[in-house]
């Protein structure tokens, strides 16, 4: 894991092949000098993030800092206005198809579950060889809800379903936006280790956008803090966990 701070003078990795960022070839997800935004106006600039297989990056920052935009651009949902995103060596170039084919999954902050389908139908949509049994083993709570229409589920149940469905796809790179939003503490405490296990066992690279800094740092390997569309702080999660004041300052942009 190597999340380069913008102060490290590596604005564009493709033009600076000797920069440390470009040397990493084992990165599952590599974002270099990314600018992305809406209607041609960038909302995030010069984002550099590299996540190796099997590692978790906690992406932190205050509301409106650009975390969601970064994830959406990485998933190909937004056109890339500058820089590049590659997933296991495949350039994404603002195309969702490229991202999904390369093995990237995004759980958006609206959860992306289909309200008119039942829970079972939602799970079936994940093209998985073993059916959706593994999802039920992972989250037994869903077993009793299989035939309920998704729109009727509680907010937290929908989030569980979204995570369960995505894990069925066995992603190589997993981006989770606002993971714990609406989840009870006990559910978060169960899911976070689950994600850790997915990273360790399947070698999935995970980016976790979280409001609960402590919880996120407890499972992550690395952390990055965004402010006003830029990355203002990066470092190993364990280290930052000890030094909360630094994160606090980064939240206010200094």
């Amino acid at each position, binding site marked *: 894991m190597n999340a380069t701070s913008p102060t490290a003078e590596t604005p564009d990795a493709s033009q600076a092949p000797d920069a440390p960022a470009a040397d990493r070839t084992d990165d599952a997800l590599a974002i270099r000098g990314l600018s992305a935004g809406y209607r*041609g106006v960038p909302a995030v600039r010069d984002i550099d993030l590299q996540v190796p297989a099997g590692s978790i990056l906690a992406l932190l920052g205050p509301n409106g800092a650009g975390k969601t935009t970064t994830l959406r651009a990485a998933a190909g949902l937004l056109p890339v206005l500058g820089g590049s995103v590659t997933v296991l060596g495949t350039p994404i170039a603002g195309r969702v198809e490229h991202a999904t084919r390369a093995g990237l999954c995004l759980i958006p902050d609206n959860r992306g579950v289909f*309200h008119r389908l039942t829970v079972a139908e939602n799970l079936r949509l994940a093209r998985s060889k073993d059916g959706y049994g593994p999802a039920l083993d992972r989250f037994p709570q869903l077993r009793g809800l299989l035939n309920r229409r998704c729109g009727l589920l509680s907010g937290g149940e929908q989030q569980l379903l979204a995570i369960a469905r995505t894990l069925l796809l066995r992603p190589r790179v997993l981006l989770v936006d606002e993971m714990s939003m609406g989840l009870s503490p006990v559910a978060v405490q169960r899911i976070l280790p689950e994600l850790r296990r997915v990273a360790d066992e399947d070698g999935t690279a995970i980016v976790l956008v979280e409001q609960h800094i402590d919880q996120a740092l407890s499972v992550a390997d690395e952390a990055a803090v965004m402010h006003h569309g830029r990355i203002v702080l990066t470092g190993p999660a364990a280290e930052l966990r000890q030094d909360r004041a630094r994160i606090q300052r980064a939240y206010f942009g200094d």
Partner: protein
Amino acid sequence: MNDLLQFAVIGFSTGAVYAVLGASLVSLHIATGVVNFAQGSVALWAVWQTAALRANGTLVLPLGSVALGDGPMSAWPAVLVGATSGLVWSLAAHLLVFRPLRRAPALGQVVASVGVMLFIQALVTLRFDRDTMGVDPGGLVPLPVLTAQTFTFGGATIAVGNLLLAGLAVAAAAGLAAYFRFTRTGIATKAGAEDEQALRLMGYSPDRLAAVVWGATGFLSGLTVVLAAPAIGGLDPVSYMLYVVPALAVALVGRLSSIGVACAAGLVLGALQQILLFLSTKPWWPSWASAGVGDAIPFVVVVVALFLLGRGIPERGAREAGALPPVAVPQLRPLSAAAPLAATGIAIVLTSGQWRFSLVMSIVLTLVAASVVLLTGYLGQISLTTMAFAGAAGFALSKLTTNAHVPFPLSILLSALVATALGIVVGVPALRIRGAQLAVATIAAALAIESFVFNNPSLTPYTGNLIRDPSMLGHSLAVRQGTDVITLRFSFMVLVMVAVLLIALARLLSGATGRAFLAVRSNERAAAAAGVNVPAVKLLGFALASFLAGVGGCLIGYSRGQLSTASFTVLVGLTVLAATYAGGITRISGAVVAGLAGPLGVLYLFCTQTLELGKYYTLIVAAVMLLRVVVFRPDRALMPQGAARVRRLLAPFPSIARRHAPTAPAGPPADAVHEPESAHAG
């Protein structure tokens, strides 16, 4: 009893058409959320194509034609080619119209499908002519394909062909239903209609999934209609286009979500209509009900059933109707209202004869379209009854002036109040039926009014529904005087009345009433939680809209001297809605555009008289409408990028920023937005 059975089976031929069209409509709605008014037109083309092939082997294309062999083509190949032409049209509609509109408001899609419907129909008239086919279209008939065998069962003569048709309908519906229920791609298709982006994130291609359904329904609709046409009757350039109306009713029975129910309902409706037709020849059948029962009764039953099944407040997770175009709340400044008013006044003075007449018609249509702005644009209720309300008021005006001799201004007020009462009655279903379903339900209401009131011979004397000329304080306000087809006095009476009502409307829409309407339009549950009495507000909207439309209907009536029912049909209502949407359904200026472009307005006269394009009028209107709805989308800002930049620059001065870009949402904060359309689309 035997008679009933026999007539029921005869009805299976039309029933099969209803069933398959209905099942197709439901399938398309499940797969894409679109209510496709063009389903009948697609089948219409297929029927003509097959007939042309079997006449002399000509394959007619939108441009040019190809001779497939010399001489007539044999039956089944012709049928297959015909059905395939349905598939091609359907796919083309998907690729060119509905795919670009996949995230447009439901209303935009409805309007686009009306455009496609009119476009194909106009093209059928133009292309299947003597020049292209080499035979006289008037002499063309759909030749039979299915067996003509019959057998007797319990005393009734049963045609095997009709049973085959019913079987085909059931098989088609079963196939479609199974696809959505049991296959992964079918389930994914349903998912795509709801959240296309989430589906793409799972590695599916929503466009391809939708294309499968478009193709399949186009083919099945074409095939069924081609096979059923010989049993149903002749060939004319409109009939099957209008079969979409009963098909919509049938789809509604299946609540636009159950293919099986829609299919069954289609067969039942076909049978029932034949039986009613048979019964209405009996002496005991009441004469007031002799007209239109077959059309109206099933519809009314459907609406009542839907109402009873519906919910007062939408359930948790129920689908929102989809965003409508953004709103520009009218700001009344004396000058901005006075200038167009004065210009119109001058135009009235300067024109005469036919031109002045169509100018006045445009003014009246503006009023009618303004009622659409209120009801659909602001309150979000897609209603196709506007013209029916107008017609009902005109009808009341005729009775009030000729039978009761009610004097002029009072006559309009009372007639408009009749329309208001009717509007409230029609509004009741809207308390529980929403979105596209409501659109279809209001067609039902319009149709019921049309066939029971306008076209009912027992309500209309042989002389027609005459309307006495208006006069006030001894001065005649009659539209005609001597050779003058439209007097200045009448024109100014119309102008003043419409202007006053529009100004009143602008005040309403910019005030508390407008805000409550918009709250209901964007979220009924939240509106109720904010203390808004949602049912009352909806009924208020229907009442106000039907009042405005009613006044419009009275003015149309006065301008003709009698009520001509042709001005108030469902098709005219659809056109007015479409024109208003294209003009801008969330602003009063949109109503003005609709007034100018609408039926018999200034633009119509310009096209038919000045340009002499009468033959191509429908085609041009449909094409322009499609262009406007698909390419220059009213639900989007015209220059999103530039506008956003301007706003960004002006951000420190919020009030200026808003004035400069009233429709473009500002550059959103990075974390909060679900961008409606990513820039690489296509």
